[in-house]
C-alpha cells in the first residue's frame, strides 16, 4: 500500500542516528514500485483498450486469442518484440541510436512523480508540481532528434525533425493553459494571514483541492473552458496521436524516426507513446476534472466522509478509483479521436500550434488574470 507521506515524515523526525536517515530514503522504494506496477498495468490496459475500441469503430473483432477477450495481447506483443533481433544500422551513430528511445521513455516516466491519486497518494508533493512536468516533458524531443539523426536514413532524419518541431510547438500553449490554472489569488477579506502558505501554488495536490468545493460544478473545466480545449488539443499533439500523427505517417515517411528500429527499442517508442497518453489523461483529470474528488454534489456527503475518515484505506481506494475512472474517460476520447479524424499536414499542424493556439492561450491567461484582479 502507498505509505502516507506524513507518517514517513514522523518517522524521519524520530530518527536520531545517521543510519536511520539512510533507511528513511530507501522506504520510498515501496511506493515507487507500486507506482511502476500501476503504470505497467495501465499501459497494458490501454493497449488492449485501443485495439478493442479501434476494432469496434471499424466493425471488426479485436484481439481474441491471447487470453480471455484478448487481454494478454499486449504481453504477447511485448514478448515477441523482446526476442527480435536488435539491428544497428551500418553507418549510423550507434550511441545516439541506442540512447534515443531511452531518453523518450525516461522523460515520460518522470512525469508520473507529481500526479496525485489521492490526498496523500503522490510520490513527490512538490510546490512546483506541474512546472516539473512541463520542464521534464521538454526533454522528449531530444530523444526524438537523437533517434532520427543516429539512424543514418534520410526519412528518419526528416521524421525526427518534424516530430521534434511538432513537440516543441505545442509545449507553449500547453504551458500557458497550465499557468492559467495555477493562477490563484487567495485574498483574505481584511488582509489577514491565510492559514496555509499559499506561496507555491503549482502543486498538483493544491490544484485538486481547489476544485473540491461544489462537487461537479467546482471543476476547473467550467472556470477555464477555452483552456480545457486548448490543453486537450495540445496534449494530443504532444503525444503524437492522430490527428497529429505526421511523424509516423506511413505513406510519407515510412515510419519516421522509428524506421530503423527493431525489437526492444521499437517497443520502447511504443511504450513511451502510451505512457505519454496515460500521463496526459491523468493530468487532464487532475487539472480540469477535479482529480480524486467524488464529484456528485449534494449526495449524502457526511455519510461518505465518515467512511472516508474511519477506514482510511477504503477512502484511499475510492480516491484512486475515481482518478483512474476519469482518466480512462479521457483515454476513451483520445482513442476514439484517433480512429475517427484524418491526419493533418505538417504546415497545417504548425500553423495550428503557433498561429492559433498560442494567441488563444495567451488570451486565456490574460482573461483569467484580469478577472481575478477585478475581483480584488
Amino acid at each position: 500500500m502507498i505509505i502516507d507521506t506524513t507518517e514517513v515524515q514522523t518517522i524521519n523526525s524520530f530518527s536520531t542516528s545517521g543510519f536511520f536517515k539512510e533507511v528513511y530514503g530507501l522506504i520510498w522504494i515501496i511506493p515507487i514500485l507500486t507506482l511502476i506496477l500501476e503504470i505497467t498495468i495501465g499501459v497494458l490496459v490501454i493497449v488492449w483498450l485501443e485495439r478493442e475500441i479501434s476494432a469496434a469503430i471499424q466493425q471488426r473483432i479485436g484481439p481474441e486469442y491471447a487470453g480471455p477477450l484478448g487481454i494478454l495481447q499486449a504481453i504477447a506483443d511485448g514478448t515477441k518484440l523482446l526476442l527480435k533481433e536488435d539491428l544497428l544500422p551500418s553507418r549510423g551513430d550507434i550511441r545516439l541510436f541506442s540512447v534515443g528511445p531511452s531518453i523518450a521513455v525516461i522523460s515520460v516516466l518522470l512525469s508520473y512523480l507529481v500526479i496525485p491519486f489521492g490526498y496523500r497518494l503522490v510520490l513527490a508533493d512538490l510546490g512546483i508540481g506541474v512546472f516539473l512536468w512541463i520542464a521534464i516533458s521538454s526533454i522528449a524531443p531530444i530523444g526524438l532528434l537523437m533517434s532520427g539523426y543516429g539512424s543514418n536514413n534520410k526519412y528518419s532524419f526528416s521524421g525526427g525533425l518534424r516530430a521534434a518541431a511538432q513537440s516543441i510547438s505545442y509545449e507553449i500553449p500547453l504551458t500557458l493553459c497550465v499557468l492559467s490554472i495555477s493562477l490563484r489569488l487567495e485574498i483574505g477579506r481584511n488582509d489577514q494571514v491565510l492559514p496555509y502558505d499559499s506561496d507555491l501554488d503549482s502543486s498538483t495536490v493544491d490544484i485538486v483541492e481547489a476544485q473540491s468545493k461544489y462537487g461537479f460544478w467546482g471543476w476547473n473545466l467550467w472556470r477555464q473552458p477555452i483552456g480545457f480545449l486548448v490543453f486537450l488539443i495540445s496534449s494530443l499533439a504532444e503525444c503524437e496521436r492522430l490527428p497529429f500523427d505526421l511523424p509516423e505517417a506511413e505513406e510519407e515517411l515510412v515510419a519516421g524516426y522509428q524506421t530503423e528500429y527493431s525489437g526492444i527499442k521499437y517497443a520502447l517508442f511504443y511504450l513511451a507513446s502510451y505512457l505519454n497518453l496515460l500521463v496526459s489523461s491523468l493530468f487532464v483529470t487532475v487539472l480540469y476534472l477535479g482529480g480524486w474528488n467524488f464529484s456528485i454534489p449534494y449526495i449524502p456527503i457526511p455519510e461518505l466522509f465518515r467512511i472516508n475518515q474511519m477506514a482510511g484505506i477504503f477512502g484511499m481506494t475510492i480516491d484512486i478509483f475515481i482518478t483512474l475512472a476519469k482518466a480512462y474517460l479521457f483515454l476513451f476520447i483520445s482513442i476514439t479521436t484517433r480512429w475517427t479524424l484524418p491526419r493533418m499536414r505538417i504546415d497545417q499542424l504548425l500553423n495550428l500550434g503557433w498561429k492559433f493556439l498560442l494567441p488563444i492561450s495567451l488570451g486565456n491567461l490574460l482573461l483569467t488574470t484580469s478577472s481575478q484582479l477585478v475581483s480584488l
Partner: protein
Amino acid sequence: MSEFAPIFIYLGFSLLVSLILVGLPFLFFANSSTYPEKLSAYECGFDPFGDARSRFDIRFYLVSILFIIFDLEVTFFFPWAISLNKIDLFGFWSMMAFLLILTIGFLYEWKRGALDWE
C-alpha cells in the same frame, strides 16, 4: 530535501528499467545473422541514394529558436502568476509591459513569414 528523495530514487529506477530493456538483446546476440542488405538504410527496397547527412530545411531551426524565446517567456510567467496576490496591480502591469514587447516581436515574425509553410 526529503521531498526530493523519491525523485532521485525514481530517476534511478527509470534509468535502470530502460537501460536493462535496451541491453537485453545482447543476451541473444550469439544467434545474430546480419548481412549488408539488412543493415543498410531503408529506402523502399533500393540502395540508398546519397548520404543521409544532407542539408535540412532552415525552418526547423527557426521553429526551435522561436520555441526558446517563448519558453523563456513562459518561464518568467510562472513566478509572476503564482504571486499575483502579493504584487497586486503594479506587478500585473509590469508583466504586461514585458508581454507587450514579446508580442510585438511575435507579430513581427508572423508578418515576416517566419511561421509559414511549416
